[in-house]
């Protein structure tokens, strides 16, 4: 068990290193990097001192003349949390992230909780009531939910509930305190949009995984013991289905929530990580773009680690010798 955890940690570090290397190579080979001279020229023409322009460019894309130098600087910078200076915000990238994450968290967290609870509950119900009318309705909802383009759904909700009915504000405002009722009110639509697709997708997975166990022999054993339907469903269908569901939760749902959050922040103008990243891309603020891409990557890597550790607790059959 300890050896397994050690191995898993080593793999995490290795994977992180490979991911960062790929990120660097992609950046270093890109036309944005190649156009360095052009960039400096432009800045000089725009009235900037040549040395200053060069400095600015290096600040954005990493120091060094050879690719190896740039690579080493890049990695050392990341490791020491020196992620560069954002040109749009004029402050260290780390600070920008530190100031904005709470705006993302405040609606992604409730959306995650809602979608996990509802998605698993509906999926479980659907699986134990296969081929009933409720099951078909739930499946139809799931297909609709995964097919609805997040951004369009958000706009349609704004059109109906914001523009026509006027129940909810069209744009997010930072004037209200994070824990105020007004803030909760203006976050209703973002949470609805984000959780709809997440519920749909979780419900599908939960249904499929639970179905594997609905007709399992041990479920029959459990019924033959005289357990109630509720006990059978929770203990003998849902609990074993949890094991594969954990994988999905981290792998797919995390990605879904991040990607969904990105467009939602752009649409509702919520100043979270997504909007910061969006503006950084528009402004060609390289260090900030890199940081806002790497934050979800790190979260995903850590999520994967936690997921694998959960696996060892949830599934007694796991073979620690493997991997």
């Amino acid at each position, binding site marked *: 068990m300890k050896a397994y955890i050690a191995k898993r940690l080593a793999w995490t570090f290795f994977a992180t290193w490979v991911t960062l290397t790929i990120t660097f190579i992609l950046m270093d080979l890109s036309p944005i990097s190649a156009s360095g001279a052009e960039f400096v020229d432009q800045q000089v023409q725009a009235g900037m001192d040549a040395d200053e322009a060069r400095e600015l460019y290096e600040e954005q894309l990493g120091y060094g003349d050879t690719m190896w130098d740039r690579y080493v600087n890049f990695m050392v910078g990341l490791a020491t949390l020196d992620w560069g200076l954002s040109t749009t915000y004029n402050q260290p990238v780390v600070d920008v992230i530190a100031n904005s994450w709470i705006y993302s968290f405040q609606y992604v967290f409730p959306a995650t909780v809602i979608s996990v609870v509802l998605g698993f509950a509906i999926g479980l119900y659907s699986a134990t009531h296969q081929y009933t009318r409720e099951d078909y309705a739930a499946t139809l909802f799931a297909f609709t939910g995964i097919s609805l383009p997040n951004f369009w759904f958000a706009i349609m909700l704004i059109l109906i509930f914001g523009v026509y009915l006027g129940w909810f504000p069209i744009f997010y405002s930072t004037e209200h305190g994070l824990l105020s009722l007004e803030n909760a009110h203006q976050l209703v639509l973002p949470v609805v949009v984000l959780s709809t697709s997440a519920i749909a997708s979780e419900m599908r997975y939960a249904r499929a995984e639970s179905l594997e166990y609905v007709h399992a*022999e*041990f479920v*029959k054993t459990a019924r033959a*013991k*005289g357990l109630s339907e509720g006990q059978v469903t929770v203990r003998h269908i849902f609990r*074993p289905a949890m094991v594969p569901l954990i994988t999905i939760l981290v792998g797919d749902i995390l990605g879904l929530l991040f990607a969904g959050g990105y467009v939602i922040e752009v649409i509702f103008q919520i100043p979270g990580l997504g909007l910061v990243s969006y503006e950084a891309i528009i402004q060609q603020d390289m260090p900030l773009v890199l940081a806002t891409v790497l934050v979800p990557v790190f979260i995903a890597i850590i999520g994967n680690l936690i997921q694998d550790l959960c696996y060892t607790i*949830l599934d007694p*059959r796991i073979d620690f010798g493997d991997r």
Partner: protein
Amino acid sequence: MTEQPLLSIRDLKTHFHTDDGVVKAVDGVSFDVHRGETVCIVGESGSGKSVTSESITQLIPMPPGEIVEGSVYYDGNDITTMTEDGVRSLRGSQIGHVFQNPQGALNPVYTVGYQIREAILSHRDVSKAEARELAVELLEEVGIPEAPTRVDDYPHEFSGGMKQRVVIAIALACDPEMLIADEPTTALDVTIEAQILDLFRHLQQELDMSIIFITHDLGVVAEIADRVVVMYAGKVMETGSVEKIFENPAHPYTKALLECLPGQAGLEPIPGALPSVTDPPNGCRFHDRCPYAIDMCRTGEQPPLHDLPGDHAVSCIHYEDGDGDLPELEDVDRMDAAIGGAR
């Protein structure tokens, strides 16, 4: 036998509604189980043995399954008319179940101790610690060595035979009066099978339970049965004491089954296959494969069970004339001609 039977199944019909039509898995089955006796249900795969046994405590999936007709009297009360809670209070506490495949019968994510405790706690008002003690005792009773430590092991740490012992321990958790064992040894090695059969015999003597034992292996029947129910395509072909069935089989199907036993002089396979259960043939379900079939066998319904001397009954028209035996094979064609001529 004048005392009231512990379990009495009357004209039970369990059907499954599928895309391809209604599967009449059990189509009018009746038999009794008395206290302390072992009744074996025998038949080929697909003859409705398992569905019969699972219909007793309504373990069949509903829907698509449905008990369309008939009654199941347990201790004088009809289970089919009980509420769900009523049926559930019987399961485990009065009637224990053991299933065919021990590999799948235990939930892989719980310890065996947990799974036995679960059965105890759902029917008895005992503390968790007491339930654990009981679980250890049960494991010892079914012959698991080092029970106090094994109780905290997970199912995958047990062998197939040991798993089946655990499943039996779960079934025995609340001292049921009746144990329903659905091919409990089919998935096991021959040596393990013998051990498990020994265990069943031992348990029955010790606890004085009624056992319904489902199998397709007549060798097993000969070893443990008091009485036998022969099923074919959802119908009962013949019932009787184990002596009657083995020494004096009445139904052509039973005769054919016994002839399939290895070691018998003329090892004869039964020609043909089970008839369709969605659209069963008219008349006797077995007529297609029966050498004694005459035209009358091919029309109408399955003949009713006809009482023979002793504890014995058969569903075959050849016994309705009262001579108590099948006709000679060469006479079969002549009988058709005679009846045809009379008509």
